[in-house]
């Protein structure tokens, strides 16, 4: 049928739905739903890791294969450093920029190396906002409890307390740098309610929160003249004779040469894994989200946490085909947008946590109440026009300009017509285990941002990631910088690789791939 004809049911049922209040699931119902429909519980997608720090723990096949992959680097590699620095930051997203700026501010010599251009990352795409407990009726403790509940009580308490306590100071830092957060009439920060949160707590810059923060941080990195190495992908870390981190090897993606950087500490801020397309899911992530930091740390002996759980964002675009996987911001649901199945019914409280909402969408679709596209995709409606009905004409345009433009390019006016959505692979809930200074169990190896793990438990609450980046970017930067003055540059070796390869041999063998992946293989090889 014509898409407009199919959309009629959404328009027709709108008034009736507006009167309806949907309760959240009871804890028991919610567990049952998730176990039945959430992709994290699809046993066939998982296998145990055969060796290394997380031996015998299960993760998705795609990641296990990369963790057990071999390095590009061989023992005879020339380790004469091309650069020497105090702090080497790897990754040019939010966590990397925050780490570099704080380390630089603390007086260290800093180099920031990244795979694409500075800022090409997941961070630029964050639309929904950043959770910080600034409202009078809110508190860091409430933020802590909401997050814990969202993470199914698996969050690391120390990391979480650190994040919520440091939050307000981060907001101040960003405002002083010129970030334009939305305000209330009285000049205070405007806060929105996010899924899974008991209090309005999301700071926003219309629906360009990540873009606005990244424009400012990138500009600041350039203004502070921090040394940059763009289009260079980290392909191996370096260790000294005691197994402590002492630098990294990059591959320059322009001329394919290796670049060796000696550093007193390394901060890995390489982000997530969406481009591994786990279980065949489309993704909202940027081009370079290939889990490189996990592989690099793992070979150094760093332990990973919660790497069996991923976040499938409830609203990835399904139509038009060109936008498949791209995010339809959660802000729509925060402002009251309904999820509607093919029969015109709501089926979940839209403000429940992401895992619950995603699971219920998958349930609707598997039980035949989805809408299908001819390319074989399926989804449910997100009633975007409802926002204009509820809050006055122009609401969608004013609050969601980015999303309006995204669909408008394909001739779809989201203020008039609902959009079709299905869960998209969005976020890696776990990552490299860190302490409250963002350091791993490998000395002088820090991991900050999405690549790290423990903080979010088994499900990240919306808006907590942007705060995570800033808080642990800052802490890693300050700790690494503070250490630099009183320590010597460690020796440059790849002894950890010899250990890793020997360990692999003992337990079978390395998988047949080279890791990290660096970029997904989208280029068609033959016609």
């Amino acid at each position, binding site marked *: 049928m014509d898409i407009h004809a199919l959309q009629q049911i959404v328009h027709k049922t709108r008034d009736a739905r507006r009167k309806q209040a949907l309760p959240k699931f009871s804890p028991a119902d919610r567990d049952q739903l998730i176990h039945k429909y959430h992709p994290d519980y699809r046993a066939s997608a998982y296998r145990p890791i055969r060796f290394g720090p997380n031996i015998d723990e299960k993760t998705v096949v795609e990641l296990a294969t990369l963790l057990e992959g071999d390095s590009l680097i061989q023992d005879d590699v020339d380790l004469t450093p091309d650069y020497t620095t105090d702090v080497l930051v790897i990754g040019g997203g939010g966590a990397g920029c925050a780490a570099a700026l704080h380390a630089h501010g603390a007086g260290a010599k800093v180099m920031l190396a990244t795979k694409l251009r500075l800022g090409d990352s997941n961070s630029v795409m964050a639309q929904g906002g950043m959770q910080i407990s600034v409202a009078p009726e809110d508190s860091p403790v409430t933020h802590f*409890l909401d997050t814990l509940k969202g993470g199914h009580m698996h969050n690391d308490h120390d990391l979480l307390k650190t994040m919520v306590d440091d939050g307000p100071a981060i907001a101040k830092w960003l405002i002083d740098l010129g970030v334009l957060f939305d305000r209330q009439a009285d000049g205070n*920060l405007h806060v929105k309610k996010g899924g899974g949160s008991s209090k309005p707590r999301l700071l926003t810059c219309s629906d360009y929160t990540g873009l606005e923060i990244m424009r400012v941080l990138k500009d600041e990195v350039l203004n502070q003249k921090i040394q940059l190495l763009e289009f260079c992908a980290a392909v191996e870390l370096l260790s000294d004779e005691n197994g402590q981190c002492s630098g990294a090897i990059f591959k320059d993606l322009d001329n394919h040469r290796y670049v060796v950087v000696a550093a007193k500490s390394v901060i890995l801020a390489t982000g997530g894994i969406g481009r591994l397309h786990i279980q065949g899911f489309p993704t909202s992530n940027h081009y370079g989200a290939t889990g490189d930091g996990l592989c690099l740390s793992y070979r150094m002996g760093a332990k990973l946490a919660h790497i069996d759980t991923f976040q499938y964002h409830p609203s990835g675009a399904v139509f038009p085909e060109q936008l498949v996987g791209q995010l339809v911001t959660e802000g729509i649901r925060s402002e009251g947008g309904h999820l509607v199945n093919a029969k015109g019914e709501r089926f979940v409280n839209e403000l429940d946590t992401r895992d619950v909402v995603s699971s219920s969408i998958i349930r609707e679709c598997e039980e035949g109440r989805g809408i299908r596209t001819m390319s074989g995709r399926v989804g449910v409606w997100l009633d975007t026009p409802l926002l204009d009905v509820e809050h006055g004409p122009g609401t969608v345009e004013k609050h969601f300009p980015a999303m309006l433009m995204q669909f408008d390019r394909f001739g779809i006016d989201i203020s008039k017509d609902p959009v079709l959505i299905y869960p998209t692979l969005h976020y890696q809930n776990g990552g490299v285990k860190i302490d409250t200074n963002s350091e791993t169990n490998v000395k002088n190896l820090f991991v900050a941002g999405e690549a790290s793990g423990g903080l979010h438990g088994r499900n990240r609450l919306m808006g907590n990631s942007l705060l995570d980046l800033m808080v642990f970017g800052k802490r890693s930067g300050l700790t690494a910088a503070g250490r630099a003055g009183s320590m010597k540059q460690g020796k440059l070796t790849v002894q950890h690789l010899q250990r890793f390869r020997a360990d692999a041999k003992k337990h079978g063998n390395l998988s047949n791939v080279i890791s990290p992946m660096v970029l997904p293989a989208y280029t068609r090889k033959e016609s």
Partner: protein
Amino acid sequence: MLHPLTGLRNMAQEDPNVIDQPEVMKPRMVSIEISGKKYDVPEGITVIKALWYTGQEVVRGAGCLGGFCGACATYYRTKDDPKVRTCLACQMAVQDGMSFTIMPPFPARKATYDIQTLKDPKQDLFNLYPEAPLCRNCNACTEACPQKIDVREGVWKAVFGDFKSVSEMFMDCVMCGMCTPVCIADIAPNLVALYVSRAQGAHFTEKPLGLDVRIKEIQDGRFNDEWKKVLAMNEKELADHCATVK
């Protein structure tokens, strides 16, 4: 019934809840030109996918793949139309007869400054970007902007000190830089706007008082008792407590 070309089931006839997409049922190859070379690609895929489809390795020219980073700034022309337009390659579908080229990095000059210690940001604009007031009103920048920002107007507003309007107008700016090579006055409007927006945020926007209060509360330990209580709970108590938070 399986469709002969796509291998997909012809669901339209069996299921009323299927969106009509003739282009999926009858995929059509279209001829396009990439940097002057002809290729055939499936109609409707994005410009960036057309690069992958034709076997090209993409390193420069792709970033977020979501329309936010500006890495994929592209010039294109449609069939028989002399007008060269701009787009974000990750957000644009190819059509028959289209020709395109990804924009190479353009060496625009970015001024450096310490935003926090500026004394007179509106005056400083003229020291940092002395070319800004020399705009010749050609409007090429506005026409080049894939985000539909009225860039020319923004440059004038900046020069006249209306920093607030500039910061609002350029909230959509993805820093693709396509407004820059076209400028006959060698202005980089996006960089001017970035400076202006940051100055607006750092110097001309009221400081949120509630935020300072909260920071002080945390420093003064106002939540310490609550923290002590919460952190002393065992797993079960904590779960029960979480359930009471509404």
